[in-house]
């Protein structure tokens, strides 16, 4: 089993190669990044996100640290995607660099270790899920559902995934559904507003989502739409698991919610919508009371 989304950004010599996630499933194309400006464009144009933006940040620090400090790069990344915690990533990288002596080995070592942690996290989550898991998910967690499926198989549990399409960028359809189907994993695709109906019909018995940010209290910020699912899961008594990394001891409401351009609300639709006003916050907040368990990357929760 494999997915290009497990490592959507690669360091190749003096260039970064970024999987253009906006083209999947129709094309598997990589964008070559050889300047910080290009890296920032890739980030702001949503060519990569989630784990991809972490990799892009680390590799940008490796390649461009002769001209920019790690802090400067993190600040520039944060300006493009303000909800994500690039400043904390900078702290991690600086800490690792102090240990190894150079940025390259620090970044590569961290990334290699991070993948092992993701596999271990999937194995821990597998223990928590039902023996016949009917797992609702939203957006995309960069191949970690494949790790989860494998972990469930190892302990003789069955899994079926129900994937929310995840408007407006359709990461659920284009990335998650695509990578699951490509690996012959049982997956069903739904519109984002079908969650309540399926929960009522008892077709979902657990929810697994990613998390762009998390707090030590257990609050989570993730792709917009996550909060609705969490509310409905609570209402129907369905456990909600969030895959988190490095929670911070901060007030979740102090984290800025990125509002994207209104035009992005109409992604993939044909027509002239310039006269239609729209609002598109890219993330939402899920308070801890709706989260059954934050499955932390370090295993601390």
């Amino acid at each position, binding site marked *: 089993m494999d997915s290009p989304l497990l490592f959507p950004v690669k360091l190749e010599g003096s260039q970064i190669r970024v999987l253009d996630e906006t083209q999947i499933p129709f094309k598997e194309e990589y964008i070559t990044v050889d300047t910080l400006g290009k890296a920032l464009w890739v980030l702001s144009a949503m060519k990569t996100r989630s784990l991809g933006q972490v990799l892009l940040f680390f590799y940008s620090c490796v390649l461009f640290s002769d001209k920019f400090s790690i802090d400067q790069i993190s600040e520039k990344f944060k300006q493009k995607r303000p909800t994500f915690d690039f400043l904390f990533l900078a702290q991690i990288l600086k800490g690792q660099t102090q240990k190894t002596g150079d940025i390259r080995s620090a970044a590569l070592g961290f990334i290699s270790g991070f993948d092992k942690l993701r596999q271990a996290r999937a194995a821990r989550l597998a223990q928590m899920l039902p023996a016949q898991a009917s797992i609702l998910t939203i957006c995309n967690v960069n191949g970690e559902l494949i790790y989860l499926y494998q972990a469930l198989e190892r302990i003789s549990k069955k899994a079926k995934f129900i994937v929310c399409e995840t408007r407006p960028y359709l990461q659920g359809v284009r990335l998650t559904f695509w990578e699951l189907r490509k690996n012959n994993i049982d997956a069903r695709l739904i519109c984002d507003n*079908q969650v*309540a109906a399926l929960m009522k019909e008892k077709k979902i018995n657990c929810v697994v989502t990613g998390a762009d940010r998390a707090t030590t209290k257990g609050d989570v910020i993730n792709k917009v739409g*996550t909060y609705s699912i969490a509310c409905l899961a609570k209402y129907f008594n369905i456990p909600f698991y969030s895959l988190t990394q490095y929670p911070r001891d901060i007030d979740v409401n102090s984290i800025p919610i990125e509002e994207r351009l209104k035009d992005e609300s109409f992604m*993939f639709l044909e027509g002239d919508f310039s006269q239609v006003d729209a609002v598109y916050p890219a993330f939402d907040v899920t308070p801890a009371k709706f989260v059954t368990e934050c499955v932390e990357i370090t295993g601390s929760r």
Partner: protein
Amino acid sequence: MKLEEIKNATVVWGALSEEGITFLKNRGGVVVVAEGRPGLVGLYHNVELLKKENIEFVYCVDNVLGLLFYKGKIGKMLVMCKKIELGVLGRPGSLQAALLSKIHGVSVEFMVEGEFDFESRDKGAASLGGKMMVLGNDCGGCVVLGKDEVLGEI
């Protein structure tokens, strides 16, 4: 429109009717038009109607509704239904819209929907605006098509 500009809004779910328009005019304030997947009834029907009636509105994908509730931006939910006879029968997503309202203590108004040709629009998440978003032709059974929903306990 930015999030901070939205206050005490009315969300419209389903195909607006003349009665729905009158309700919105009487209530006043900004109207939030949800996209209304799979058929995109919000985009193809409600937006046009509200423009014609000169009613202020802001459009959003269905996923944004949760955050609007969380931030206390919604004062009313208007659900346009297929039938209201001995109970409420709604289009896909109606249950979710109504339940989210209930969970957040926002009252829901049910009305009979206006005319919209749902049959000729997308039926599920495999396509968007008529364009296929999944690869291959073997995944018909993998898409859960939208179907009418009984809103019994709301």
